């Protein structure tokens, strides 16, 4: 009896373990698929559509002003964008703040487009459940990488992937 109970528990634990191992977060499951298209108003007042950036490597960053890691990541991404812009790299920073003013204060001197997703529609489209999330999209509009969270040093990994996509 005890043996059969133990075996059943082991089975349950194994299934749970496999489920955990097999499930990536929702956003990472977009890898290899066509990046969902969207149009959002930028803080400069222009409407920007993702599909209009086909032909460029796009770093799509989901962030919010209250998230310290997001701001640190944006700084790194902005530097990379400035360096590789002429080679065809663009950064689209999608703010998930409720208030556009908060985002515009933080990115007052930004050279890249900052978009405001007040309703969170685009965040839902990309299944953003944690922040920051950086989606790397290739020239053909396919999601190639999804990076969740940010730690110092991650920028080297970003740079490596961006350079690889530029070489394709």
């Amino acid at each position, binding site marked *: 009896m005890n043996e059969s109970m133990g075996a059943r528990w082991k089975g349950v634990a194994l299934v749970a373990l496999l489920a955990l191992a097999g499930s990536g977060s929702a956003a990472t499951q977009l890898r290899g698929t066509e990046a969902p298209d969207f*149009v959002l*108003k930028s803080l400069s007042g222009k409407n920007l*559509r993702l599909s209009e950036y086909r032909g460029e490597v796009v770093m799509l960053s989901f962030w919010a002003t209250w998230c310290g890691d997001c701001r640190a990541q944006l700084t790194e991404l902005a530097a990379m964008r400035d360096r590789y812009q002429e080679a065809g790299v663009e950064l689209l920073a999608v703010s998930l703040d409720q208030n556009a003013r908060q985002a515009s204060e933080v990115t007052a001197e930004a050279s890249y487009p900052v978009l405001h997703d007040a309703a969170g529609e685009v965040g839902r489209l990309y299944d953003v459940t944690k922040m920051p999330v950086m989606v790397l999209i290739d020239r053909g509009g396919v999601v190639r990488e999804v990076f969740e969270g940010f730690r110092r040093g991650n920028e080297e990994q970003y740079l490596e992937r961006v350079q690889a996509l530029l070489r394709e």
Partner: protein
Amino acid sequence: MSARWIASASLMVLAAAVTALATAQQVPAQGAAQVPEFAPRADSAAEQRAEFRTLDEDVQDLKKQVLDLNRDLFLLEEELLFQSNTQTAVFISMDVGEFFGLDSVELKIDNKDVANYLYTEREAEALLKGGVQRLFIGNLKAGEHELVAVFTGEGPHTRDYRRAASLVFEKGIGPKFIELTISDREVRQQPEFVVKEWE
């Protein structure tokens, strides 16, 4: 001295080239006996070419069939999803656009949001260049309906501009096409928003 060397070297190269050319021209004459041997190969090359041509034609035919099938499926899908007796489509076009820079259009039919579109600079330019966009396609039952379109954008003197245009229309048997046109009214120096019905 060196000039003489170069001249003599050039002469030698030229002589070698002439000899090679002459040899090449003589080859068919020397190999005249081998002609029958080569003849079947020429035939097989021609056959191969013909085969390739047939294959190419087959591929082209197949491509055409796929395209035709795709078109038929598209039409079938449209017919099934939006049957002609209930089909209603709304289009948008712009004329001139000197007094209005389009930002977004919100479309309501019978007080229900059916379309909401934000225009990028490129899309607005495409409309200015004569493009017509299908903003909405859906099914409406026969009878009276009200359409309200709310346009937002940049008006004269770069001011924010928001204007609505409405139309009460009768949906009968057969599809209904409605066009929203934005044009300039020179006299009043204002944009004009017109809703037109197409029979």
